[in-house]
């Protein structure tokens, strides 16, 4: 009956992620969710901007940040957004294997980003004694960047869950919206990073 949403490539609709009401709802619901997330990060950015000079005698933004590592992180995350676009392209062509491949690459790039971030935090704590508790600037920095890192981590868990769950059964109208919402979420995380790169690191280096 209609419980089985699997379709063969010939009858798969052009937009499998929005072919059912559930799919449409998920698509729109995630967009609204991202609207709320925007306010969440805006509040964190506001807090950071208010406190970034409150170093309490600790290192300033100029002394702390190194653009080399941050550049690598930016490249990793921007590329992972691109690869997730490729994955969605293959989803729409109903090519499950290629979709999984590109999603896998997306996940690896995300892991690379997260590893860099963990190294960065480790470096700040051990080389500069700059911690979550050392100053209001420290609290604001780790909270803003850490919330973003937490979102990346959650995205990676989400991605592996749906990739492993659907590895054997391929694409259907029930799981296509799940892949698509992940991809939207991932783009959002990327956009937030662009702002962190600009507002935190570039402005921190210049100001």
């Amino acid at each position: 009956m209609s419980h089985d949403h699997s379709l063969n490539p010939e009858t798969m609709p052009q937009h499998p992620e929005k072919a059912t009401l559930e799919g449409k709802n998920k698509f729109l619901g995630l967009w609204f969710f991202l609207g709320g997330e925007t306010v969440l990060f805006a509040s964190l950015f506001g807090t950071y901007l208010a406190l970034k000079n409150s170093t309490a005698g600790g290192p300033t933004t100029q002394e702390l940040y190194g653009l080399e590592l941050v550049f690598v992180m930016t490249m990793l995350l921007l590329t992972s957004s691109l690869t997730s676009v490729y994955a969605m392209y293959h989803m729409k062509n109903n090519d499950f294997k290629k979709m999984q491949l590109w999603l896998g690459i997306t996940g690896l790039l995300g892991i690379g980003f997260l590893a860099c971030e963990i190294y960065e935090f480790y470096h700040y704590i051990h080389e500069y004694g700059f911690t979550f508790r050392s100053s209001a600037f420290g609290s604001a920095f780790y909270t803003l960047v850490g919330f973003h890192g937490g979102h990346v981590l959650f995205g990676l868990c989400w991605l592996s869950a749906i990739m492993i769950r659907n590895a054997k059964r391929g694409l259907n109208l029930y799981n296509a919206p799940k892949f698509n919402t992940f991809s939207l979420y991932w783009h959002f995380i990327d956009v937030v990073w662009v702002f962190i790169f600009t507002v935190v690191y570039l402005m921190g280096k210049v100001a």
Partner: protein
Amino acid sequence: MSSATAQRNSFAAVLWDYLTTVDHKKIGKLYLYGGGFFFLLGGLEAVIIRIQLIKPENDFISAGLYNEMITMHGTTMIFFAAMPILLGLMNAVMPLQIGARDVAFPFVNALGFWLFLFGGIMLNVSWLTGAAPDAGWTAYAPLSTTSPGHGVDYYVLGLQISGAGTLMGGINFLVTIVNMRAPGMTYMRMPLFSWTTFVISVLILFAFPALTVGLFLLMFDRMFDSAFFDVALGGNSIIWQHLFWIFGHPEVYILILPAFGIFSEIFATFSKKRLFGYTAMVFATILIAFLGFMVWAHHMFTVGMGPVANSIFAVATMAIAVPTGIKIFNWLLTLWGGNITINSAMLWSLAFIPSFTIGGMTGIMVATSVADYQYHDTYFVIAHFHYVIVGGVVFGILAACHYWWPLMFNRILNEKLGKWAFWLFFIGFHLTFFIQHFLGLMGMPRRYWVFLEDQGLDLGNFISTIGAFFMTAGVIVFLYNAFYSWFKQGPAPQDPWDGRTLEWAVESPTPYYNFKQLPLVRGLDALWLEKMEGNGKLAPAEPVGDIHMPNGSILPFLISLGFFIAGFGFIYQTTSDLAYILLYGGMGMALVCMLIRSLKDDHGYHITKEELEKEAR
């Protein structure tokens, strides 16, 4: 599946049914029960506050307990009484009003309810563990960051958990209204209550994350030694005030706009007229919501933001009086020349207009930033916001209860008892709060647990406390009415008020799938249109066919329980390492349940065409 639900009758089965339900009508009732319980609790706290202030230098409760009472009264009433009751009404009515079979995400809907309930329980557990939050419902730093004991920790975790639930509810309503309106139900044919649901969902979506962040910062400062509000390490306590009010001001519109929607429905129905200026009403609602985001700093006039910022926020605040005035006049003109029925629902609505207008007028007074230096933190402000919140939101909730009770509980509330409740509460309300304007103007500050004798405050406070007793009596009569109607009244007929909108077109009691065939909507006030120009029934928009239904699930309950347990872990990890068991255990439980939800396919089930036809016979 459908026949199985009908057979279960024992208490355990009913309990299990409600624990696992994803039906918007049952979730609406759950919200009403939960919110109603917290409303009584918050009311009890209010009465204790008023008893303490009945005479000068009273020693009914201690200063510390008084601080806990005012904090818990405010927090409970705003977050755990008014909000959930309104969300319950929206759940119960909005899908029916737009001709939908359920909300867009029934599972998330249930999750939102359980998060609210466990958040509310979390907050109130603080009474039992020795220290309730005592930093005021606004929890200003550094008062909240330095408050000893775990009281404020409960405030933070309780609000964080329930806030997540509210955010889910908002997203859910938005998607429902955008994607699931019945054929022909265009935006400009939606009843005003559905419109206000839509608009406040936008407000919830954009306002609550600011509170989420504020609560996280407060939590980090209190439990993990960060320095956001710690001036010694460069922190800034004004950040809390900004984040709190960026959320807090839209919040008051989240409360009042649904009440506006309720009154719009009731005035139109009981005046037997189309709502006057429907289009203007819709745009006034949107304008109020938009301006509502621009005015948060009027709560902070005395912080020292400077004359320019104060002036901008003062002018923006006063601008809100324009769309609100449009609404007041439209309601009056709806009544004008109407064929008016005065019953309990209508009494609450009629009483709302002057009561709320008084609150609006004092609102303009406190918005005048220069004069606000005089009003700030006095009983004038207390009087102002109780006039808008009780005179607006609580009157709206009680009006809605009378109006939609037949739809939700299949009973009509007793009229005589309803009128008794109204007059007791209405008189008590004005007795309590009108005099407080003058107490405030005479300089009585808010949040003080005693006042001195012979300073002109004795009689005013005495009158105010007597008024509170009248309000209590009114609430008790209403409560009695709810039980009385359940046990003594027969089932309500379908469409008892000769209604105008879609929710009155469904059979009584409402079938669990709402509409056998989705209705075809031909205009504003869809049902009334068919009564006047058709055969009184809505034409179906589709043939009878299989109906897709969601499966019930215990997971929303378990996820919320997990976060609830983890909350205790967060609170007590500062003093005991054993609390990490609760923290990791609770988070693990919630996350594993979320993973199960993600991995386990849930296609729902179908009510077949044959079953539907069999039920019809």
